[in-house]
């Protein structure tokens, strides 16, 4: 293991991106992503890397600037959060449709209103259908590793899709953790220069983002959807390459003490660490409880999830976002839909929890496992809401 240093995770995200030989960053600051934006600006202003920092007046502009820069063949990074991501929403499907490998860090935060700057996944879920590869991180080291891997995944000629790395706001962005950075030489070896499929240049005219009439739009959409599904192969390959070079192994679905578990907790993002402590506690008490963590949200890793939950009787899904007036939290709804026809599938219990920065403690996870035992149906429930 290399030397570990104490660093705030938001700063570390910018430092990791600085190792990736980026050409352009267009980042508009917003809590709790501001430290990424500020530190990225510092790194470029200080001349530590040869890149352009485009100062923009909004997130709509930052993602648009990224799209334009990426179309010229540049390696591009942006970061945002919550309302900023909502403002980017219009451009997100355009970036993926144009097959531009922009990488974004998203400091997950609740969406207004009422105004709340703290963590949940209410910002990324409305972007679910934008055609971006969507990764979740659990701790600071994963933020560093996945921010670097994201460029390799996004730019792979078999992929050519934008990638968003979700970093729980405050819970991760503002945490000071012991972190290990790869060296510049190691990153250079891992991440080759981008070889763009096409670039905007007057000598070689190309139309990107062309007009589609009704007689071709459906075909273009199927091509995009297929590209996103196919990206999983490359994601798995890049995870494995990282594991070989750096010794830290990544899977699209992670498991912890899940093999013989009768009850499984399913999480995304930073709460996985707390849940693993709760699993340890319950195991000590002789209970067959395990943990499944979705690292990849889009494309949805359905085969890997099926393998991870095999044999479990109850699957407790922790949803950190709401789909108002819908079937449940976005994660549970998706899983129920995929497993609908599976014989002997686990009973799925859906808790909406950890909203707008409310802490989810070890005791809360244990209480949710208790509550799940008593719950008769598969309707969703707000955990911890004051009745």
């Amino acid at each position: 293991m290399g030397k570990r240093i104490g660093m705030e995770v938001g700063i570390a995200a910018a430092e990791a991106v600085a190792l990736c030989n980026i050409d352009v960053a267009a980042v508009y600051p917003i809590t709790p992503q501001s430290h990424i934006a500020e530190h990225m600006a510092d790194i470029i202003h200080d001349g530590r890397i040869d890149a352009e920092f485009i100062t923009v007046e909004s997130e709509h502009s930052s993602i648009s600037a990224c799209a334009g820069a990426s179309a010229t063949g540049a390696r591009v990074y942006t970061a945002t959060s919550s309302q900023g991501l909502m403002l980017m929403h219009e451009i997100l499907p355009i970036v993926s449709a144009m097959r531009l490998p922009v990488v974004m860090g998203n400091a997950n935060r609740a969406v207004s209103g009422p105004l709340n700057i703290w963590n949940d996944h209410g910002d990324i879920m409305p972007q679910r259908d934008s055609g971006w590869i969507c990764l979740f991180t659990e701790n600071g080291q994963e933020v560093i590793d996945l921010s670097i891997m994201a460029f390799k995944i996004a730019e792979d000629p078999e992929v050519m899709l934008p990638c968003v790395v979700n970093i729980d706001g405050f819970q991760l962005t503002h945490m000071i953790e012991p972190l290990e950075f790869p060296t510049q030489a190691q990153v250079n070896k891992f991440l080759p220069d981008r070889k763009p499929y096409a670039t905007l240049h007057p000598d070689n005219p190309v139309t990107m983002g062309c007009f589609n009439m009704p007689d071709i739009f459906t075909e273009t959409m199927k091509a995009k959807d297929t590209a996103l599904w196919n990206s999983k192969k490359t994601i798995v390959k890049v995870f494995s390459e990282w594991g070989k070079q750096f010794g830290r192994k990544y899977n699209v679905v992670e498991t912890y003490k899940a093999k013989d578990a009768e009850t499984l907790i399913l999480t995304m993002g930073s709460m996985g660490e707390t849940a693993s402590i709760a699993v340890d506690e319950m195991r000590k008490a002789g209970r067959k409880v395990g943990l499944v963590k979705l690292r990849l949200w889009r494309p949805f890793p359905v085969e890997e999830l099926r393998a991870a939950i095999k044999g479990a009787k109850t699957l407790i899904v922790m949803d950190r976002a709401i789909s108002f007036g819908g079937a449940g939290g976005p994660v549970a709804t998706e899983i129920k839909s995929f497993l609908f026809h599976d014989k002997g599938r686990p009973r799925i219990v859906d808790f909406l929890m950890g909203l707008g920065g409310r802490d989810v403690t070890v005791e809360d996870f244990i209480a949710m496992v208790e509550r799940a035992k008593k719950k008769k149906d598969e309707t969703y429930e707000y955990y911890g809401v004051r009745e």
Partner: protein
Amino acid sequence: MAKKKTEQKKWPEKWHEVTPGCMVFEPGNAANYKTGSWKAQRPILDKQKCIKCGICYIFCPEACIQEDAEGFFVADLGYCKGCGICAHECWPGAISMAEEVE
């Protein structure tokens, strides 16, 4: 479905023929797409009344009106959308709009 000879090839035919990002590498090939089929009306030029002033050419938002060898300004119906601006602007009243019946 039988295709008329005049119908342009709808390329790409299949979803897997779509280039990544539906990028187009042939400059100016939008001209191959005959958008004139959208029109509900077509302009009819009365050459007896036309004074060859070219005001229709100036106002045509589609830029599909060109001067021919005799000096008349004639709309290319392959691109004309039938908006009627030429007929509206033609002060000698040489252009009238007729229903597209094809």
